[in-house]
């Protein structure tokens, strides 16, 4: 019986393990992204941020998780129980399943007689799958707002889903520009193409990256576009009636969505697991960068240990320092001994580094920009973002044709000349659209609203 089971599951064992890793690490990662966000917010606002739970607030995510588990879980009176229970689940599953398409490190590895990549599944419709599944997240929000049986949550839910639907188009178009360059949908192939090209696609199509960043901020309901829960009378939008663990699920879904969106941007534009200047040999000292960074962390933690007040903080901080040392050693090992493991460890490190950098930009926008009004937000989405991203796809097509070698009907231009043409053309159209919008608001202001 057992060997039947093993034979039955053999080809799928490694993906199952990676799924386990992703599903367990994700809430932890999301928790620490929340801590990072609160610390960065505090730093920008000239204050300290959470310092009480654990040294420098390092145990804050665990404290939050426990609190949310123990909090009372109120279900509003005559709310729709079935929907109330399933809405957060839809949101979280959509966010987590979207991780299946992302590839974290290069190469295939042979386990249990089957070749597996360092990803949950090596889909050849990678990006399309991720976009499709994360568009399911809208149902979690719409049904959550509907089930909590309050007029304002419904209004908040309708608004945030309308926002997500309209910015998904702009994000999709921006991704198409990236995929035009790569010529394939599978995340592994895209990054391998960038490795072959030697240049990340963010330099090929910087405008597409910019549009995608703005659209992804709007799609995850964050920063200047986090209008639904910030409206004065919508209080917390669709999340108002949820409390305790249900609310934690929505919160987890939002942060997983952020990490997924950052993952897509890293894969398509920032060269996934590629180390900066992957090709050039002179830049090999960058291989040491991961170990140096983690050694820096560990050193800083050790330096802070004597300054902690409570004994427990000293212990926790030294554990963290030990952890950083272990990771630093793990990352240093391949550089010296060069086993087959090097690409995986370094690949995952660079992938996560870029994801964290992308999330840092998210947080930075959140604390420096005021909020858009809902109609401005929709007008920006429909009258500026979507047309500009479509024009960019066309311009990029033109640039790619120009870059073709002369015998295939192109002019044999270099990639940066193509980039200039596509970016310049799109900026022209964007400026023209902006001026049109400006004149329109002028006319409205004069004529009196």
């Amino acid at each position, binding site marked *: 019986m057992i060997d039947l089971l093993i034979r039955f599951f053999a080809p799928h064992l490694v993906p199952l393990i990676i799924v386990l890793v992703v599903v367990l690490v994700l809430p932890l990662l999301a928790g620490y992204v929340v801590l990072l966000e609160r610390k960065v*917010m505090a730093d*920008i*606002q*000239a*204050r300290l941020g959470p310092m009480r739970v654990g040294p420098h607030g390092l145990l804050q995510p665990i404290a939050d998780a426990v609190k949310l588990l123990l909090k009372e879980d109120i279900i509003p009176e005559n709310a729709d129980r079935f929907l109330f229970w399933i809405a957060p689940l839809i949101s979280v599953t959509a966010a987590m399943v979207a991780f299946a398409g992302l590839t974290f490190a290069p190469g295939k590895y042979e386990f249990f007689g089957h070749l597996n990549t360092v990803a949950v599944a090596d889909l050849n419709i990678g990006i399309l799958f991720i976009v499709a599944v994360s568009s399911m997240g809208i149902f979690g929000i719409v049904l959550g707002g509907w089930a909590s049986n309050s007029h304002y949550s419904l209004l908040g839910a309708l608004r945030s889903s309308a926002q997500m639907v309209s910015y998904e188009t702009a994000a999709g178009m921006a991704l198409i520009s990236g995929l035009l360059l790569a010529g394939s949908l599978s995340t592994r192939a895209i990054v391998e193409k960038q490795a072959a090209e030697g240049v990340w696609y963010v330099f090929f199509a910087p405008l597409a990256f910019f549009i995608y960043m703005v659209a992804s901020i709007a799609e995850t309901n964050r920063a*200047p576009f986090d*209008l639904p829960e*910030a*409206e*004065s*009378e919508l209080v917390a939008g669709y999340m108002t009636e949820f409390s305790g663990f249900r609310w934690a699920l929505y919160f987890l879904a939002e942060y997983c969505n952020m990490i997924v969106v950052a993952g897509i941007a890293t894969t398509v534009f920032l060269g996934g697991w590629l180390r900066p200047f992957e090709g050039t040999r002179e830049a090999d000292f960058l291989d040491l960068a991961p170990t140096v960074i983690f050694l820096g962390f560990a050193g800083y933690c050790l330096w802070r240990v004597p300054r902690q007040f409570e004994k427990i903080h000293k212990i926790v901080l030294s554990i963290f320092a030990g952890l950083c040392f272990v990771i630093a050693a793990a990352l240093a090992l391949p550089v010296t001994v060069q086993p087959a493991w090097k690409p995986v460890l370094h690949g995952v490190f660079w992938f996560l580094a870029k994801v964290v950098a992308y999330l840092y930009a998210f947080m930075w926008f*959140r*604390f*420096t*920009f*005021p*909020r*858009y*009004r*809902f*109609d*401005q937000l929709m007008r920006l989405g429909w009258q500026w973002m979507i047309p500009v991203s479509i024009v960019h796809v066309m311009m990029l097509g033109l640039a790619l044709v120009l870059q073709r070698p002369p015998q295939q009907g192109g002019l044999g231009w270099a990639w940066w000349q193509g980039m200039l043409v596509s970016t310049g053309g799109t900026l022209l159209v964007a400026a023209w659209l902006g001026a049109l919008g400006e004149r329109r*608001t002028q006319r409205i*202001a004069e004529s*009196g*609203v």
Partner: protein
Amino acid sequence: MSDWGTIGSGAGVETTVLGADEILINMGPQHPSTHGVLRVKLKLDGEKIVSSECIIGYLHRGVEKIAEYRTYQQFAPYVDRMDYVAAVSNGLGYCEAVEKLLGAEAPPRAKVVRTILTELQRIASHLLWLGTHALDIGALTPLFYCFREREEILKIFEKYCGARLTTHAFRIGGLQYETYDGFEQDVTRFCKDFGGKVDEYEQLLTGNRIWLERTKGIGVLTAEQAIAIGATGPVLRGSGVKWDIRKAMPYAAYAQFEFDIPVGKRGDTFDRYMVRMEEMRQSRRICMQAVEQIPAGPILGKVGKVLKPAPGEVYHSIEAPKGELGYYVVSDGTVQPYRVRIRPPSFINLQAFDQMARGHLVADVVAIIGTLDIVLGEVDR
């Protein structure tokens, strides 16, 4: 001149039956962004505001009635509780009004110190306005920067008169306490780096496209409307009327210092924002000049313990951070005033709310309440 009659009447919600799909929603009195207990009844057509009505009175404490049963000195602390954000200027207005009634005069040293403290209070009030106004519109960071500077000012107040918010810093006839040694150094140190700080706030907000879109063209109040309603202070100056009591009828020691009056053009939220930011810089300028010219001499005029002004009345107004704060004091010869009528600038500026909010969306109500810079303690008294 547009028809004056209609301007005032728009305030109430028409009693006509609600239109087919108009809905009436209630904002407040407990509301995160109504700066206190203000209730706004909004009649909406979908998202657009058809008309609005501000219901006030939740914080009414009957200050003016209490005044009739208190002596002139005893009533001074009540005045701080009205506009609790700018307590020092309330006190200045009341003390100067009673001094005018008595015919007494504060000594020059007291006048200059009063000017410095009032200007510092103006900066503190504008900082609190900027922090909460930006927070309502969504910018999280300015609040913490503003409160960091405001903390410095409150420390100076605490060192001088022991209290941070309701200071009761002045007495009728002059000052109660001599300035603590190191007062000049503290004020100069604050003024020195405050200029850079205001530029820091502007860097965060003024050039920001989203801030411009949320404030330009929102809550427009033309000059005629502002004058018709009797709006004063930054709300009036934002609409382009150059009227400031400190220049028009100088009191305390304002005549000795030069400073200019910022004026807006279109009278929208952005212009009032620029006017208040510029006012902070001008106040800093006044403080810098005043700190050097503090004359020596007594701090309390010859007013005597028991104040029994001759029967008569006086109206004296000063330029509080929110606008013209006036005191109409009537005395019947006894130790207690017969009547103390207070002209609250926030209450009168709030009348402009309905006109400003019409036609805008619900999200703009928050910005409009912010730009009027109302404090409910002063509105309800």
